[in-house]
């Protein structure tokens, strides 16, 4: 939400006169030479797919790749660009308008179609589960469950889905991508929480408009990596450092950890995760035990202690960056990530004035020092709210770090997942 409100103003400025854009393209990551192999997939950070880039709401700090889907067992395939790469979720989801293939519907043992209301922080996305063979780099996941969001064949969210908030994330424009590739630390997207009715997540449909929250079903959407024949214990995201801002960034998504010559852990530190996929961050005097590393977050989000000025949050529109940190001068900070295994790593990061980051005519698809409070100032504007226990290490953390995500219950050269390493 914040990012799009920010960039809405860039669009308006560009109407006045955008030349070639001032920011540069940055490529690399993973050192030299560039990684090669059947498990190496190119990724980019840019302004988004058609329908997002060049609009009033282009993407910021959003990592994309291209995924090929095929009708199972056939060579009838479609490559879909600008699928967001997300270590904060599990499973492949495609926006229906980006999909031209006719994929078979996944059905339960009774022959009923399965649909999903997948929860995001600000709402949910609705659509049935279909089956596809997935091809990414040289890896294949056969007969994989894929959620088709906004699928016209099953248009009506089931009861309970409405209560998660408006199911608004059903278009490319609202999603900011043609789909999302969840390659997080979990195998299933929902896990045990969906083993009963009332979870408002998995539904069985007796018709195109009659879907019921029936509780436990055998099938969930899964992390596609776990369905590969090899290199299936995790991923590495390798992106170069970004100095200030960039119009685009390119790097690599590498499948497997310690399974090939190109995906060893090297000197990376392993921080293990709790049952929620989370770790602890020590920031100033705060011990934030609901912290996470997430390529699907577009900024650093951490509690506001009142020391860094914030632009007023939405719906305020008096700045280019409502809700983001807007210090008068860039602030250099550090925080310590502590894994469940006690391993700790001190991380330096910077917080720039988001208002000025987005006040130029240049295309800004990547911003290394973009940060926001993980809480809002209270309505009276004078008291800061510090209830959050979260430090979200978003995509800016990935700029200049090779970040490993090891999947739960999977063996790696550094032990069993889940963990992050960097």
């Amino acid at each position, binding site marked *: *939400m*914040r*990012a*799009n*409100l920010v960039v809405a103003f860039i669009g308006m400025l560009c109407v006045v006169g955008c030349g070639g854009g001032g920011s540069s393209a940055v490529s690399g990551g993973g050192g030299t030479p560039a990684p090669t192999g059947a498990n190496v997939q190119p990724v980019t950070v840019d302004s988004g797919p058609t329908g997002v880039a060049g609009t009033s*709401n282009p993407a*910021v700090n959003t990592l994309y790749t291209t995924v090929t889907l095929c009708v199972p067992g056939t060579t009838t395939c479609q490559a879909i660009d600008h699928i967001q790469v997300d270590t*904060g*979720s599990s499973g492949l989801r495609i926006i229906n308008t980006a999909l031209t293939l006719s994929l078979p519907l996944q059905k339960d043992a009774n022959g009923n179609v399965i649909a999903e209301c*997948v*929860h*995001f*922080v*600000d*709402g949910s996305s609705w659509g049935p589960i279909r089956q596809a063979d997935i091809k990414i780099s040289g890896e294949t996941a056969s007969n994989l469950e894929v959620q088709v969001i906004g699928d016209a064949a099953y248009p009506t969210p089931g009861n*309970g889905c*409405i*209560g998660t*908030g*408006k199911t*608004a994330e059903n278009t490319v*424009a*609202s999603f*900011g991508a043609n789909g999302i590739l*969840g390659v*997080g630390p979990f195998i299933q*997207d*929902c896990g*045990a*929480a*969906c083993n*009963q009715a*009332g*979870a*408002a*997540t998995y539904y069985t449909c007796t018709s195109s408009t009659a879907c019921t929250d029936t509780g436990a079903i055998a099938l969930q959407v899964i992390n596609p990596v776990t369905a590969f024949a090899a290199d299936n214990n995790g991923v590495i995201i390798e992106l170069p450092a970004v100095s200030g801002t960039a119009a685009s960034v390119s790097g690599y998504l590498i499948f497997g950890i310690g399974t090939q010559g190109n995906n060893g852990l090297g000197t990376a530190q392993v921080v293990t995760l709790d049952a*929620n996929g*989370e770790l602890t961050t020590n920031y100033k005097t705060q011990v934030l035990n*609901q912290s*996470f590393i*997430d390529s*699907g*977050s*577009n*900024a650093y989000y951490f509690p506001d202690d009142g020391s860094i000025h914030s632009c007023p949050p*939405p*719906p*305020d529109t008096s700045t280019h960056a409502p*809700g983001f940190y807007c210090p008068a001068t860039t602030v250099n900070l550090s925080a310590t990530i502590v894994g469940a295994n006690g391993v700790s790593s001190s991380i330096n990061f910077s917080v720039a004035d988001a208002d000025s980051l987005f006040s130029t005519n240049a295309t800004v698809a990547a911003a290394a020092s973009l940060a926001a409070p*993980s809480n*809002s100032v*209270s*309505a*009276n504007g004078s*008291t800061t*709210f510090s*209830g*959050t226990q*979260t430090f*979200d290490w978003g995509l800016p953390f990935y700029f200049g770090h090779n970040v490993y995500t090891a999947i739960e219950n999977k063996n790696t050269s550094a032990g069993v997942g889940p963990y992050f390493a960097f």
Partner: protein
Amino acid sequence: MNPASAKAIRVLGWLTAGVLASQAICLPAHATLGEDVTTVENDLIQMKAQLRTTSVAGYTVHEIQTPANTVVREYVSASGKVFAVSWSGPLLPDFRQTLGRYFDEYNSSASAPRVGRRHLSIEGTDLVVNSYGHMRAFYGNAYVPSLLPPNFSVADIK
């Protein structure tokens, strides 16, 4: 007494109250954000949930745990109004139930175009919502500034 020890004592009192309340089987009444506490236990029925109640100076916290292990806490003032709610767990709560009359305002704000989907902050005219987290771990809170008890710090919404 310095502020740190005062806080520690208050937390201890909170926990003690929780133990006492959880030993009492009778279910206190509660309702949704902005509503009066009533004898209607809609939330419990809707969420098929269990309830625990604790009291601290000036307000009461009703803690509801759904079968999916999402915990919803409702903060009730001495005058009987639900002035804040918070949630924590693997799935979002039903916001129609927990936000009540504020659901529409939340909904229209939440559906504004955006890219990031791990954080949401809304400051409406008399509604503040913070929602954050990721798949399998959702956190958040909502409160009505005009209903906050005197001297209540929103930092105490846990």
